[in-house]
């Protein structure tokens, strides 16, 4: 099979070369005009293909609501409950508990209730809560984190019997559109 330009390299070889990031540098390929033209074409049709799918998505931006609904219904059936955390009971034949999933959800809600805060992940151990949050740009971060800490302590005290040593709030994200009740 003839090579491209004045070389013995085939279209396949040039594809492999492109895939490897054109490294190690092949002087013969780099010096051959037709090889360069083919490499440029290969690059172009690759990026055009990605652009084509992006355009397809832009032209069909709405998801069918019943499709979405049936997806949601399937997911909601599986409650990510996690462990059962015991609640005290005076009766040996009665067992009361609250799930880890419920606790995480109420911690999330407590943090979300603070203006300009979106809670990310919640990690619970026996006595320590670690939360990561995103804060609306412009809102003082320390104040927001402290408000989250208070809200979480308060709700955990109300709804669980966990002896919480610390609630650690990490601000690791920023967002720029107001959440409901936000000030931007």
């Amino acid at each position, binding site marked *: 099979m003839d090579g491209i330009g004045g070389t013995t390299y085939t279209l396949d070889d040039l594809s492999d070369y492109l895939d490897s990031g054109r490294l190690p540098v092949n002087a013969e390929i780099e010096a051959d005009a037709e090889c360069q033209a083919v490499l440029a074409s290969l690059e172009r049709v690759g990026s055009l293909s990605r652009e084509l799918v992006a355009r397809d998505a832009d032209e069909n931006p709405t998801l069918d609501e019943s499709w979405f609904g049936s997806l949601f219904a399937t997911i909601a059936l599986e409650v990510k*409950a996690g462990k059962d955390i015991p609640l005290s009971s005076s009766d040996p034949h009665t067992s009361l508990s609250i799930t880890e999933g419920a606790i995480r959800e109420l911690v999330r809600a407590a943090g979300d209730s603070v203006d300009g805060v979106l809670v990310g992940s919640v990690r619970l151990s026996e006595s320590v809560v670690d939360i990561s949050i995103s804060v609306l740009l412009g809102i003082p971060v320390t104040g927001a984190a402290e408000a989250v800490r208070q809200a979480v302590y308060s709700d955990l005290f109300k709804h669980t019997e966990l002896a919480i040593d610390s609630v650690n709030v990490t601000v690791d994200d920023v967002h720029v559109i107001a959440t409901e009740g936000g000030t931007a």
Partner: protein
Amino acid sequence: MSDLATIVEEAVRAVPGVTSLFSVGPASLVAVSGTDPVRIAVSVGVDRSMQAPATAAEIAAVIRSIAPAGADISVRISRVAS
């Protein structure tokens, strides 16, 4: 047994603060098993305006008042939401 489950379900729903019951078995919102002792289990969602531990205790008390004597009762709070 299924009558007991239905009665328990109705009674649990009537407890202030209970917003929902979750499946505890295939297609059952109240799990009733065993004969001596009878075992009854529910998984509930409660409103965040109510204290979850107190609500759980109240639910257990309500079930206790309906269930055969000596029953094992298990109440699990799976959700605390508004």
